[in-house]
């Protein structure tokens, strides 16, 4: 890289650094809020208790030790738990009017959105990390295909990102957290169910519902198959809902 190129790239790097600095400041505050409030712990503990029950049931009742029960039930649980985690993200700022403080500071809407989603994802990542005790305990009892397990967890992480971005969008369209939870839950549920109803829809709709629903994409990853189309699906739909959140916050200046 010659001097001219370095000269050209330096201001861009500086503005990227400034962007990231603000992102980190916002992210740290949001994350601290989650970890300093009991509600996040309650949600995490309840999730671990329920998922632990579904993980342990086959071990004790059927003498079968596998992770598939957990991997199949977790997305359903996330439909409840992730909107519960994300419902406060923007709705609370509206209700307490702190959105005015936030957005009159020298920050941009994309910084606010990404920082808020990243903080919710951090709490969810910690919860998911705690569930790693399930595959680890099975690996102590016998052979476990860890590749498939990691793929399953990748699928769960992407599902969390998708539901999280839906939950944040729901939180951006109302100042009532309960309403945000219900809207987030409904949207996640629709995406979840769309993949389950392929056998009930006309032939020409099968491929569409199969692609739109989360089911087929998560199923591939749970079986240890990493298909770029599945990854693109999760990232695209998550990006779409983040974009809707961006549009909502930007248009609130002009509405």
């Amino acid at each position, binding site marked *: 890289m010659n001097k001219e190129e370095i000269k050209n790239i330096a201001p861009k790097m500086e503005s990227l650094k400034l962007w990231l600095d*603000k992102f980190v*400041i*916002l992210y740290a*505050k949001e994350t601290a*809020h989650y970890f*300093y*409030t009991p509600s996040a712990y309650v949600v995490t503990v309840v999730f671990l208790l329920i998922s632990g029950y579904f993980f342990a049931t086959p071990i004790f009742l059927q003498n079968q030790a596998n992770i598939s029960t957990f991997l199949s039930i977790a997305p359903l649980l996330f439909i409840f738990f992730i909107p519960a985690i994300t419902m406060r993200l923007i709705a609370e700022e509206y209700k*307490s*009017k*702190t959105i*005015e*403080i936030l*957005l*009159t*500071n*020298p*920050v*941009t809407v994309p910084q606010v959105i990404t920082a808020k989603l990243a903080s919710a994802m951090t709490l969810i990542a910690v919860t998911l990390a705690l569930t790693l005790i399930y595959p680890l305990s099975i690996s102590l009892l016998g052979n476990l295909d860890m590749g498939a397990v990691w793929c399953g967890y990748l699928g769960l992480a992407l599902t969390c990102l998708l539901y999280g971005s839906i939950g944040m969008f729901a939180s951006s369209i109302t100042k009532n957290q309960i309403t945000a939870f219900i809207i987030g839950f409904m949207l996640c549920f629709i995406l979840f169910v769309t993949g389950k109803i392929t056998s009930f829809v006309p032939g020409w709709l099968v491929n569409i519902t199969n692609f739109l629903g989360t089911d087929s994409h998560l199923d591939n990853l749970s079986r240890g198959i990493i298909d770029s189309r599945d990854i693109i699906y999760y990232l695209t739909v998550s990006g779409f809902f983040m974009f809707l959140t961006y549009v909502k916050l930007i248009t609130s*200046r*002009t*509405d």
Partner: protein
Amino acid sequence: MIRIEKLTRKYGNLTAVENVSFEIPSGKIVGFLGPNGAGKTTTLKMLTGFLAPTEGNIVISGLDMENNLSTIKNMIGYLPEDNPLYEDMTVFDYLLWSGKLKGLKGQKLIDAVKNSAEVCGLSEVITKLIGHLSKGYRQRTAIANAILHNPVILFLDEPTSGLDPNQAHQMRKLIKSLGKEKTIMLSTHILTEAKEVCDEIIIINKGKIVAKGDTEMLLSGGEKEQKIILITEKNLNPEEVKQKLSDFGKCAFSKTENEYKFTIETQKKEDVRKNIFNFIIEHKIPVLEFKKETISLEELFRKLTL
């Protein structure tokens, strides 16, 4: 300097602010008065970039708002209406977080937090949760946040709302001291506050500016008209005095048991009091009272907004 050009803001079919234009020179404290729903808060929200105008331009220190939003955000401090704050943070954490967002770092950040906390009298409660503070301390916390990065312009939306008289007095003192080096625009319902603190006043009603100008000038009835009152003893010829006083403007005369009252109204731009005073001396008129009539801000407010 703040310049607003033909600013209009609509919420659906409702026009909250209509074709508003004014200029605020640097270093002035300007009171923004108006009844509830007049468009004060909407105008302040547009001036801080929180709302975009439907039509019109805002220029702050020569920068157009829509094209320089992030630069302008760094130049202004804002106290929103109802004083929203993050209640689960301590005063120190909140100011530290806010300072970082405003681009302050290291020792400069710590110094700014300490300084604004000290100026606003927050040192005693700096480690307390904002949610546990009294209304007065919450208001001070919000002001400390607004002045944290030493902005050149402050927008304060009802800064003394909900404070007790002592707290309100302290807040006004603080605003006056801040006004020595900053341009401040404050909206208020408390007219005595505007009279006490502000160099200039803008009155808005139903989204339109109905009066603006120097506070004293507005209270003296505006530059268009001067009203001088002269009260004298009864040992003179009132008709003769009235006739001579008519040289200065339209003169009315009335009498009570012990005195005559002459009211001189003039459209002249220059202050006529000196000429009338010379006339009094020259004709040895036994004066009991001689004053320029002013109207109270309440009267002016009611006259313009009812």
